[in-house]
């Protein structure tokens, strides 16, 4: 087959599929963002950005992503290299670490609320150990820090596995000879990680990071379960516009703002972690 046509043939199925099931509804919905009944308008954008909670939700969403994603990246890298070195029980350990992957964000919210609520497991543990006389109220508006921490922990618990699986699959492709050679030359484990694992893992790192960041901007269920109304995020506001206020134009506008942020961060990550063409090992 003609080598110039081949790539297009290969991407054709995905393109057709996404045009039909994503692009078409997406265009219909985005059109609503630019109209309030008559003609083109930016009123919807003005409405959602002018709402007093908008700066708060924006800040919360970005702050949470900034706090959670780097920790998840570091943790996933650590776990992937650990599992890579393992000789016995690799399957089992990896399985345990990927378990949260199978748990939906709604279910994760239920689980972590059972831990942090006033009569929850954390308080039961602390009072069992005699650390506190009576259960402490953790998730309250006086303790925004603890609320934030609880959401962070729940998110790290739930969504690190997404990165882990991608990185594990990528690390498996790095030839063992590189490590053997490095060991012969006396490179420390840390040096081997910096000089071999990290650079060669770049494609997988890029993918894991981009997907994780995009999903981080869409976080909703876990935050709603733990933060209640104390920690509003962008996606929660979008749903409120769509289903409580029945204002699909405003909902679409807010969703497009989230989309724009996601694209901006995606482009940054793609630039920073650029994969050289025809990457060679």
């Amino acid at each position: 087959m003609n080598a110039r046509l081949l790539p297009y043939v290969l991407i054709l199925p995905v393109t057709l599929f996404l045009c039909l099931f994503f692009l078409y509804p997406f265009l219909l919905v985005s059109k609503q963002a630019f109209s309030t009944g008559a003609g083109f308008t930016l009123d919807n954008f003005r409405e959602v950005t002018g709402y007093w909670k908008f700066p708060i939700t924006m800040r919360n969403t970005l702050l949470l992503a900034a706090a959670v994603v780097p920790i998840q990246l570091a943790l996933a890298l650590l776990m992937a290299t650990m599992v890579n070195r393992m000789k016995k029980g690799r399957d089992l350990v990896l399985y345990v670490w990927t378990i949260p992957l199978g748990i939906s964000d709604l279910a994760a919210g239920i689980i972590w609320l059972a831990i942090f609520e006033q009569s929850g497991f954390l308080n039961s543990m602390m009072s069992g150990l005699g650390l506190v006389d009576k259960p402490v109220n953790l998730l309250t508006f006086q303790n925004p820090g603890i609320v934030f921490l609880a959401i962070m922990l729940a998110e790290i618990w739930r969504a690190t596995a997404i990165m882990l699986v991608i990185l594990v699959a990528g690390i498996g492709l790095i030839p063992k000879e590189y490590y053997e050679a490095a060991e012969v030359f006396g490179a420390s484990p840390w040096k081997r990680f910096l000089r071999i694992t990290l650079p060669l893992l770049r494609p997988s790192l890029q993918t894991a990071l981009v997907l994780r960041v995009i999903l981080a901007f869409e976080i909703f269920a876990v935050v709603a379960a733990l933060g209640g109304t104390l920690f509003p995020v962008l996606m929660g506001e979008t749903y409120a516009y769509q289903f409580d206020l029945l204002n699909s134009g405003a909902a679409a506008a807010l969703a497009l703002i989230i989309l724009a942020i996601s694209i901006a961060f995606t482009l940054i990550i793609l630039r920073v972690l650029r994969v050289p063409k025809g990457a060679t090992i």
Partner: protein
Amino acid sequence: MTLNSRILGAASGVAIACTAFAAQAEVLFWSTQAKPVEEAQAMREQVLAGAGAVDYQPNDGGPWLTRLQAELQSGSGSIGVLGALHGDFSAMNPDDLVDLDDVGVMSASETFNDLAKLGTDSMQYIPWMQASYIMAASKDALQYLPDGADVNALTYDQLIEWAANAHEAAGEPKFGFPAGPKGLKHRFFQGYLYPSFTNGVVRTFASDEAVTAWEKMRELWAHTNPASTNFSFMQEQLLSGDAWIVFDHTSRLAQAFNERPDDFVAFPAPAGPTGRGFMPVLAGVAIPRTAPDMGAARALVEYMLKPETQIATLRATNFFPVVGVTLPDDLPPSVKAAGDAVAKMSASADANPGLLPAGLGDKGGDFNRIFVDSFERIVLAGQDIRAVLDDQKGRLAAIMEETGAPCWAPDAPSDGACPVE
């Protein structure tokens, strides 16, 4: 080989699923009510058992609305009967609902039947069941009632004092308030706090009496479990003891009474300077214009209003009948407790019943948001009450003008849109 056989298996599975679908001819009952799994189960097994082939599907508001809109837009559907709150129906275009005057059933309340017309000349939905919001407390908390206070005739000041006493005794605030994401806090402000202090909701939104009302709210909040911003179903906190005195929807308190009937009491909402404000909850059944089998759908609507069905519904969902029935004696504890409290509330000398917002159309959500935002800014963020109310007043006036909704009780009637004074 294995992959091939797997694909084949999946494909034949699809085929089977398709034929199964074609063979069904059930009436789809698409509802936002009776959602908790136990209630849904009871609806299917007890309430609808005698109604022929009915598929009862309760949903979250989002999917409920999306599916309905999609069917209306495409002009063909599978939903036979809709079950939802008055507010859900009033947000819809009345043309999308079939006129139900000729079904021959309606509620015993003229007010409800009028609401169900949604501003048209004929019934757009049939009132189906009703509930209200009440207070409940652990019996252990009764000892902290202020001297001379009658739990069945509390005032807001006594409630605050009671909550303060309980706070002191427990060493932590024990009043509970459903201020979580799914909590019904806005109804407390619209139907209880405002009517009790200002004898209005819209007209008096930014009045001096409203400032007093919010000051009282702040006082009460000082003795409210600060985790209330996570609470949406106060039965959970009653059972766990995280809250001793609570306010909520009757069906959101039911589990506490059914699990430990001897541990809790239900009682009327408190009274303020302008009476004991309270508000009903009204759910209805309607038929969308795209219903596949009108005859079967009408039959189901009729069935839902039968006295036996209404009593079965009461058992299943803790929502009370809207038609005249004699209630049997063997009702679950939650129904008895809630029924007594509601009866005392409406029979009290200072009762100041409010109505459901009407004529707001699809602005019902924006209307609720005015009150929730005021709460978050005044009580949670501690902003100046006068400033917040004056700021929110403009938004409220805009909603009223845009929809042209006339005043509803306890606001004095208006010509045209209800004014914010």
